[in-house]
């Protein structure tokens, strides 16, 4: 490879250079630390062709490439975050050489240090809540029973049952959404900061249950047990909860412009 560029995954303390886990980055090359002053960037060399301006623009539109790159990026961030406090950098942040990375660290040192301080000793947890239809709501779905003869006739009776089932579903969805909002407030109380994401599409989650909460919480490392307990306790037949993490503090690594 004659032409390398430098892909940056995260910013951390200079100390991480001495103890960086051996993990391969987006191009398959091992990550390394590029340090300056009190800070270091977790980086790896990538092919300047694949990550050049035009190629990158094109590649980012290729969902297969994007999925691979996102996974590799995440693998690095996730692994390093287990050993060192880091502030993850957004996908596809690429520099021409190490010198430019060092210049960046120097130039934005104050902002990076502040970002790092906000996440140090803290972990991100993801919580998703789904409105889970209860089995009792679809009594006819599993086992088609002959409808009881009534004055209304079987067709009308059937439609009425369907409508009632739909009303029950809407009601349980509403109550699940309310419960999820209350849970969010409780989790936010345990957290230093929180962010809500848009709910994911049922087809992507592989569940036909509607997602009513998709949020991330930045929690002191010591607060893990409390978060786990709360999520365990608040799950109910109509409210399925999913805890993800620990995540590197992706959702909370931000630069405050001065």
């Amino acid at each position: 490879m004659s032409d390398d560029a430098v892909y940056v995954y995260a910013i951390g303390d200079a100390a991480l250079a001495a103890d960086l886990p051996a993990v391969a980055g987006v191009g398959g090359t091992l990550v390394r630390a590029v340090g300056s002053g009190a800070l270091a960037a977790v980086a790896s060399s990538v092919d300047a062709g694949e990550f050049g301006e035009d190629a990158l623009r094109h590649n980012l539109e290729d969902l297969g490439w994007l999925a691979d790159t996102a996974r590799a990026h995440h693998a690095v961030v996730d692994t390093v975050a287990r050993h060192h406090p880091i502030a993850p950098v957004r996908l596809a942040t690429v520099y021409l050489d190490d010198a430019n990375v060092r210049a960046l660290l120097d130039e934005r040192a104050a902002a990076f240090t502040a970002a790092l301080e906000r996440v140090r000793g803290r972990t991100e947890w993801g919580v998703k809540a789904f409105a889970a239809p209860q089995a009792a709501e679809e009594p006819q779905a599993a086992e088609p029973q002959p409808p009881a003869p009534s004055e209304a006739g079987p067709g009308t009776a059937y439609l009425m049952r369907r409508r009632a089932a739909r009303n029950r579903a809407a009601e349980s969805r509403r109550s699940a959404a309310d419960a999820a909002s209350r849970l969010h407030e409780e989790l936010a109380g345990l957290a230093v900061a929180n962010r809500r994401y848009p709910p994911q599409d049922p087809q992507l989650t592989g569940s036909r249950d509607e997602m009513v909460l998709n949020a991330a919480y930045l929690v002191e490392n010591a607060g893990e047990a409390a978060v786990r307990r709360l999520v365990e306790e608040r799950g109910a037949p109509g409210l399925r909860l999913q805890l993800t993490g620990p995540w590197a503090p992706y959702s909370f690594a931000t630069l405050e412009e001065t």
Partner: protein
Amino acid sequence: MTRGGLPVPNRADPPAHRQESANLADILERVLDKGIVIAGDIRVNVLDIELLTIKIRLLVASVDKAREMGIDWWEHDPSLSSGHRDLTKENRQLRERIEALEARAADGDGTKPPDRHHEPERADDV
């Protein structure tokens, strides 16, 4: 590194014990949309990535449409697809079909709900 064929980058997968539930959607949400935003030397400017994020959202929001376009990476992603999902899809399609049939049955007589003499046959009609 490999015996002939394509070089396989030795990408470390996220350890399962740490990220039990990290699926691709969760990862994309974070690596694309969050994290420190700094302008690299390679200018894929921020607006492009934001546009891309919107695109992904649209795709994510209409997976069927994406599949029509031949974009189906999540089908090969074990955390996003499974036999269970197919069953779920089939269930949904059946439900939709039933609803369509009901709607047709209801429309058949104008404003009146269907009455007993043609409701059962409708189901066999199709």
